């Protein structure tokens, strides 16, 4: 049966069909749906780990124990998991291990566009890259076989466009025998204990392995030559292959399904048959440099950009500019002045977002805030402009501690989401306590991992499988670390937020503030939405409420007679009734929920 599957769904299907028994990951666009899909198949255990490093160790452990395993993460997640990835490359495993890395050219939802093929080369691990969902599914099984044959983890690298494009996939059956009794654990201390003496033995093995893989790559069916016109030869990978096929129907192709290590003979053979050799690959000149190291003349990044994502138009225009295609091949496009400079729709904190109440207050108190990654990062945008750094998951707390140690007089504030806190904030908070700084750590506990689409985490008390588990309370963690001042507040209550923050600023020593309120988009929170409204006669258009940056409260057509300023209006379709605007209004012109009810009763 053929069905349309996204690349992510196809990878999950591939994991199921090829007998993956244990899978672990941490959410991150564009990889998240892989585990969300895989967990629904029977016979597969899948979990969200608190972070990617833990997920990688979990998958490695399962593979040590003889079960096929998968670790799944977005590209920057592999930075977090790199330490584990590297030791696994040294030890090898008892059963196949596939590591899925979802890279994000153009940074649709990431802080960088690093090219994770470098990790394959760095760790001496083979790298596979699918060009559509069918291949994404197949390559999971292929990766596991290679992993077992060569005793190495295999990196399956996809990009956003592969992850989130739907193409037809032929479904197969699960090819694994269900176990009748529990597997036994094979002990091999020389192989698995990476003390220097053992590691020195393993390193040459890793080098030999990659040399053998070079030979293997020559006959790897997913590396293939498609000979056509001899004027132009294109080496390509991943989704770029699809763009190039469309733009250069006359050219010859060397399509690489394994981009590390490269099949040197095949490349030489191909290069010898064409007049001009180019590489079409997104992001870094990875294949290009490998070919150049063979001493073969090749072009790539002199024609196609390093930064951003490709599409057929970009590939075509670049080719025309480089003289690879005649100008007559350009697609006729119609640029119209009137369609330039249209109002954009940038991401914003949603109406009712609990993070807003916190930022409105830190702004009022003029605090410098080291931020972190999550929905709350959007607090950096005007009009709030309340967050002043964002680097990577968990960075906020360490940074704020460092700022305080640098001698800045103002008290330092770190703001971090609940999921991000459990991911990489824990050791950083421990450091604040242990190495004694006055850092105020605010944990924005919206009871979910909102940014990536509402995944569970250790604070929610539910697993990826939907089972109940012990929910850890941030309060208990902070106290266990030895932090004396621990507050819990409701960010919808601005007075409470302000008084707690003022207390923290006045006192010495570290403080932890847990700002707890469910994300407004969670089903339970939605049930409580009750739009509120502006009493037009009372509003004089002062604009204080616009300063909270909520899409639900906007300028109306009605102007105040005295001031000539536009009065505020609340869009009942967007408003959730969080009452933050009502609390900042100096003229009591916005009704609170209770007043709305009273008004409803009286009219």
């Amino acid at each position, binding site marked *: 049966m053929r069905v349309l599957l996204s690349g992510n769904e196809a990878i999950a299907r591939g994991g199921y069909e090829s007998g993956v028994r244990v899978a672990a990951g941490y959410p991150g*666009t564009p990889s998240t749906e892989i585990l969300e899909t895989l967990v629904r198949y029977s016979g597969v255990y899948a979990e969200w780990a608190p972070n990617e490093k833990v997920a990688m160790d979990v998958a490695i452990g399962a593979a040590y124990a003889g079960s096929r395993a998968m670790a799944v993460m977005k590209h920057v997640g592999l930075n977090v998991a790199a330490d584990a990835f590297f030791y696994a490359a040294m030890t090898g495993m008892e059963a196949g291990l596939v590591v899925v890395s979802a890279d994000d050219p153009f940074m649709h939802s990431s802080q960088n566009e690093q090219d994770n093929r470098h990790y394959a080369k760095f760790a001496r691990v083979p790298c596979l890259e699918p060009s559509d969902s069918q291949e994404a599914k197949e390559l999971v099984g292929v990766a596991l076989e290679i992993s077992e044959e060569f005793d190495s983890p295999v990196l399956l690298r996809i990009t956003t466009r592969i992850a989130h494009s739907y193409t037809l996939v032929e479904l197969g059956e699960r090819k694994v025998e269900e176990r009748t009794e529990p597997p036994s654990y094979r002990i091999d201390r020389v192989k698995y204990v990476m003390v220097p003496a053992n590691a020195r033995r393993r390193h040459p093995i890793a080098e030999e392995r990659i040399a053998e893989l070079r030979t293997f790559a020559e006959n790897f069916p997913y590396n293939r030559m498609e000979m056509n016109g001899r004027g132009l030869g294109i080496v390509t990978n991943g989704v770029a292959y699809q763009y190039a*096929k469309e733009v250069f129907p006359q050219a010859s192709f060397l399509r690489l399904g394994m981009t590390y290590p490269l099949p040197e003979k095949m490349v030489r053979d191909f290069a010898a048959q064409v007049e001009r050799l180019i590489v079409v690959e997104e992001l870094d000149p990875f294949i290009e440099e490998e070919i150049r190291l063979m001493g073969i003349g090749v072009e790539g990044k002199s024609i196609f950009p390093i930064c951003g994502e490709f*599409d057929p138009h970009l590939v075509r225009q670049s080719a025309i500019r480089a003289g690879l295609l005649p100008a007559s091949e350009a697609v006729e496009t*119609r640029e*119209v002045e*009137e*369609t330039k400079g*249209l109002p954009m*729709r940038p991401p914003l904190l949603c109406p009712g977002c609990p993070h807003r109440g916190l930022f409105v207050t830190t702004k009022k108190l003029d605090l410098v805030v080291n931020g972190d990654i999550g929905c709350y990062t959007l607090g950096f945008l005007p009009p709030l402009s309340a967050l002043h750094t964002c680097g990577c998951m968990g960075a906020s707390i360490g940074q704020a501690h460092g700022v305080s140690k640098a001698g800045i007089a103002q008290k330092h504030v770190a703001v971090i989401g609940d999921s991000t806190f459990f991911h990489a904030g824990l050791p950083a908070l421990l450091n604040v306590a242990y190495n004694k700084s006055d850092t105020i750590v605010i944990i924005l506990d919206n009871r979910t991992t909102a940014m990536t689409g509402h995944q569970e985490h250790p604070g929610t008390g539910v697993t990826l499988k939907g089972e109940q588990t012990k929910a850890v309370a941030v309060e208990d963690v902070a106290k266990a670390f030895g932090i004396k001042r621990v507050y819990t507040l409701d960010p919808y209550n601005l007075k409470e937020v302000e008084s707690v923050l003022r207390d923290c600023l006045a006192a010495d020593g570290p403080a932890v503030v847990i700002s707890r309120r469910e994300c407004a988009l969670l089903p339970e929170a939605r049930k409580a939405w009750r739009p509120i409204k502006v009493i037009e006669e009372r509003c004089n258009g002062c604009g204080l409420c616009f300063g909270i940056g909520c899409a639900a409260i906007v300028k109306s057509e009605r102007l105040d007679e005295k001031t000539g300023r536009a009065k505020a209006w609340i869009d009942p379709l967007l408003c959730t009734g969080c009452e933050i605007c009502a609390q900042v209004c100096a003229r009591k012109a916005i009704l609170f929920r209770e007043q709305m009810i009273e008004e409803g009763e009286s009219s």
Partner: protein
Amino acid sequence: MKEMNFLLAGVGGQGTLLASDVLADVGVRAGYDVKKSEVHGMAQRGGSVTSHVRWGDKVRSPLIGHGEVNYLLAFEKLEALRYVGMLRPGGVAIVGDQSIPPLSVSSGEDRYPDDERVGRTLRKVIERTHFIPSISLAEELGSARVHNIVLLGALSTFIEDVAPDTWLEAIEARVPERFLELNRRAFWTGREAVQPTIS
């Protein structure tokens, strides 16, 4: 058929993704190779959402190249303007009559283009634009939510080699039982809403 490229453009929450699921499935049911790719930023409410759907004997790229769209299905007028340049000469724009002002408009910094400007600009770029009062038609049927199906109905009239039943099957596969009748009516209403073009 060599290939047929559809670009769906709207705002998060408008039902763009459901419509593109249906459209991709119609292509599969009609026996084509199909690819579909969604392009959207972060998960917040209210952002631009576009979806590329391609049918053909053999589809390569999941993204449609600039200037290669046959049909632009816009769920919102500002989004129609934003993507009209993607159409190829002779392409068709089907535009729902909804306006969703971005925050910069409602906060008074930007202006939302009026209907006159929308119409004038679209006509400047392409010969065939069909404005469909999809929201009001859907409301008449009982729910503004089915405006996406009204628009699909309108689109279906242009794809002559695929029978309406194929579209209905793809819709029915995705809609809960109790909304089936409403969606069927929305589809037929959309088909009837397309007027022959006067140029």
